[in-house]
């Protein structure tokens, strides 16, 4: 068994989000400020905190009876966040002492001589509690971030291994196909490799985007159509491929199934639509909305007279119909008025399919 030199740093992918909420946006300046604070060295943060305590103490003395006790929390937070709880507690005690010195200098009259000391002790306690809570929060935040990073790395590694295994399966099919002498039998293996290729590209798109649940299907559809046209255009035929794909977000399950459906439809058009034709057009469309729509249209021979998809379905079409049902969609296969075949797959949008998951499944079929 081989030894893999894998580490998190090799595979870590920053999580990329499609969008942020207004709440997250409003917190962004605070995050940026905390990030800047986090970069400051421990010593620098402690020295800065001591200086801040001195400045606040001066203001506290100058303003006289106005209490500035709350402002001492600023150096306490600064020291705790950046230099740890011990530094935070130290600044807390220093702040309480500074308040006491200012208060004594102002010669406030108290009912009991120990009262200012009691007040200073209470302030020191409050600052200490704040420092403790803040340091706990920081520790938890660091732990959470580390866990997220580790899981993201694992997930990326899983996707990588999936792709590696798909490569091995594809290689095995290729090696097996070599032993066959019949071209038609070999073509079956090639079709299987194309299906594997389609699934692998989806995994690639998923983990290279860093968004592991939903993806934009348009990019995948475009790449797949171009790849299949490059490798399966019939000899002697000049094909023009036209892909008109709007961005449509789908979840991983739908993407894999939809990818396989598109693969079958494109292969079907390439295999049967243009055989012996000197030229042809192949159009692929993807449109979003309440109900998404994917269309594969060719200007080839079209469907034979009296064709009934329910009765005349070969394996490819049978798979298309089955997989369309699986994604709660509907398939419409017909002759295009301009000539050739047009197949349209209607399928629920991401939002409506999430709602439908809670409902009982419904039988869908050919339109």
């Amino acid at each position: 068994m081989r030894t893999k030199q894998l580490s998190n740093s090799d595979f870590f992918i920053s999580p990329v989000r499609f969008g942020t909420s207004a709440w997250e946006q409003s917190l962004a300046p605070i995050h940026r400020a905390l990030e800047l604070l986090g970069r400051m060295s421990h010593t620098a943060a402690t020295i800065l905190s001591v200086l801040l305590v001195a400045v606040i103490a001066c203001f506290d003395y100058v303003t006289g009876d106005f209490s500035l006790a709350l402002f001492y929390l600023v150096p306490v937070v600064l020291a705790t966040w950046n230099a740890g709880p011990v530094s935070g507690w130290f600044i807390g005690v220093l702040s309480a002492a500074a308040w006491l010195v200012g208060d004594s200098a102002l010669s406030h009259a108290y009912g009991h001589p120990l009262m200012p000391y009691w007040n200073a002790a209470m302030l020191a306690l409050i600052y200490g509690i704040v420092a403790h809570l803040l340091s706990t929060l920081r520790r938890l935040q660091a732990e959470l971030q580390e866990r997220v990073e580790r899981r993201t790395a694992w997930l990326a590694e899983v996707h990588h291994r999936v792709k590696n295994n798909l490569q091995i399966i594809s290689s095995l099919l290729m090696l097996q196909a070599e032993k066959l002498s019949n071209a038609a039998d070999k073509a079956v293996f090639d079709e299987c490799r194309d299906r594997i290729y389609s699934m692998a590209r989806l995994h690639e798109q998923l983990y290279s985007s860093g968004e592991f649940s939903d993806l934009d299907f348009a990019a995948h559809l475009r790449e797949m159509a171009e790849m299949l046209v490059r490798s399966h255009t019939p000899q002697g035929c000049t094909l023009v491929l036209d892909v008109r794909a709007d961005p449509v977000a789908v979840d991983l399950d739908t993407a894999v199934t939809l990818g396989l459906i598109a693969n079958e439809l494109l292969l079907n058009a390439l295999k049967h639509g243009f055989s012996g034709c000197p030229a042809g057009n192949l159009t692929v469309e993807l449109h979003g909305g309440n109900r998404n729509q994917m269309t594969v249209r060719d200007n080839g021979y079209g469907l034979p007279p009296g064709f009934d998809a329910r009765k005349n379905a070969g394996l490819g079409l049978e798979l298309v119909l089955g997989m369309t049902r699986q994604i709660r969609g509907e398939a419409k296969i017909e002759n295009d008025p301009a000539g050739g075949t047009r197949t349209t797959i209607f399928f629920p949008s991401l939002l409506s399919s999430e709602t439908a998951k809670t409902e009982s499944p419904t039988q869908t079929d050919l339109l």
Partner: protein
Amino acid sequence: MTNARILIVEDEAITVSALRRELASLGYQVAATASTADEALNAVDLHKPDLVLMDITLAGTVNGIVAAVAIRGNFHLPVVFLTAHADDGTMERAVAAGAFGYVLKPFSGPGLKAAIETALHKYQTEIESRRRSNRAA
């Protein structure tokens, strides 16, 4: 450049077998195969291939990117990466290692051929430009 001699550096035996056949069907010769970085360096020295097709995750302790840097530095040969890694970080490291091409697994025949031909052409251009600058100097 058909008939180019290619060194395959890949640690999955099944993938190596498939690559051998795919390259042969595309008109290339497989000069040798290797599964570790050390084997790859020895094979380059011994067989003098025209191009190296390199996986990034290899058997042993040294990965394909490090091996590619060594091959570029010592033998000035074009290296095309063949890998399942599609993330930006790995691609950037591959480019920094002087990659002449990047093919993602699972590979397809046309994709493999396009990457190899582009790499060989780029390599020829690089050699000619170096020759011209040497002559000018």
